[in-house]
């Protein structure tokens, strides 16, 4: 406890850094996954191929990816781009499947009705399919957010500052409070992202408001 009180500044700084570094991979992963997931949903033949390939990306160990990317892409080791790209890859791996599933979850009758009232396919996608796929998209995005926040800690191995610093530095110095604080703060940041996404979901999809948000609710209980 003394350690925590003496290091509040450090903890806060690392937490903010952690939040900052988590945002971009989540947003980028979401944006990249939309066209991928759409293709997988729209053209059934490609579904197995695309989803297997992106699923494969998820099996690349984070440790390996952080170290292999710099020479492969010609970016600096110290560059944050390294970790951001790696985490974006994981985000896409999870999200592409979610997008495909989400689009498939839209009631075909609604889709036919939309076509019948004169929607173009582009307009129907953004005006009907996409909002109706919202709840499933949101569920996927929440998994992405939580997993990104957790995986970011491994980035400390290649020198990218995050709450992971409290793990390696605390382990090296034998300070249990440091490692424990790192774990607790990482979970809190993950739950924060989760909460924000749920609220965003309620704001953008008011028709789902009556439903519960089990992940955040249960976690708070």
């Amino acid at each position, binding site marked *: 406890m003394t350690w925590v009180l003496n290091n509040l500044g450090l903890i806060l700084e690392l937490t903010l850094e952690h939040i900052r570094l988590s945002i971009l991979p989540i947003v980028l992963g979401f944006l990249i996954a939309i066209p991928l997931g759409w293709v997988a949903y729209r053209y059934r033949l490609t579904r*197995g191929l695309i989803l297997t390939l992106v699923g494969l990306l998820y099996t*690349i*160990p984070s440790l390996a990816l952080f*170290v292999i990317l710099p020479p492969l892409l010609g970016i600096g080791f110290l560059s944050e781009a390294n970790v951001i790209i790696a985490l974006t890859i994981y985000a896409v791996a999870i999200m592409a499947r979610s997008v495909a599933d989400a689009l498939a979850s839209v009631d075909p009758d609604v889709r036919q009705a939309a076509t019948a009232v004169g929607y173009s396919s582009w307009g129907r996608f953004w005006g009907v399919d996409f909002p109706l796929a919202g709840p499933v998209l949101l569920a996927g995005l929440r998994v992405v957010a939580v997993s990104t926040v957790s995986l970011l800690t491994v980035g400390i*191995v290649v020198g990218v500052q995050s709450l992971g610093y409290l793990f390696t530095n605390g382990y090296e110095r034998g300070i249990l409070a440091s490692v424990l604080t*790192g*774990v607790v703060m990482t979970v809190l940041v*993950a739950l924060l992202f*989760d909460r924000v996404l749920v609220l965003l979901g309620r704001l953008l999809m008011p028709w789902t408001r009556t439903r519960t948000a089990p992940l955040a609710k249960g976690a708070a209980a």
Partner: protein
Amino acid sequence: MNLFLDAFAWLADPANWVGSGSIPQRLAEHLRYTGLAVLVASLIAVPLGWWIGHTGRGRELVVGLTGAARALPSFGLLFLFVMVAGVLQREPASVVVLMLLAVPPILAGAYAGFEVIDRRIIDAARAMGMTEWQILWKVEVPLGLPLLFGGLRSGVLQVVATAVLISYIGLGGLGYDIVQGIELRRFDQMLGSAILIIALALLLDAAFALLERWAVPRGVRAGRLPEPRTAPTGRRATAESPATTEREEKN
């Protein structure tokens, strides 16, 4: 691309296939930790998931807890457990951390498998005079198997990829060569090991797909809707991660 050639050269080098710390030994270690973790996770998650699916009780709580479990950073937990339990306990510590990773998808697969079952089937079974026990074993479990296998496969994949981190606390596995390679700047070794891990993940996934074919009754497979998860139960859709519970593209 040179890097990949080097990695395959490292993989092909006979010197890396014999003796202590050889590739087969690392593979065996990796499989052992993965297997133990998934086994323990299944022993906990499958009965619990089935109980939740059958009774409908405790669902919100478990969904919440597993959501929070997903947020746990394995990297920090490993260090934490070793510091608390001591270096002699690093093997059980690793298994526990990896197990925590596998529980959420398996649990979700187990109860989601029950939830997608048409209620009318259960009612019909009950009307035929089946006991609750018979309903569980003869109706719900077989019908729930496809999603359970989905959860298992996703759990295995996560554990295989994350087991790399146990090398950081001095245990073997395929991550050993990655951790050592980072310090020695041996990219061939790092990439080669990463390729091995991906190959292992693919093999295990394929093995589970075969196991699923063998274990799931033919009637269940034939009778499945092409997109069972899209049954319009919006509640379920918001609750779980499609990414971690369903894998069925190979059917």
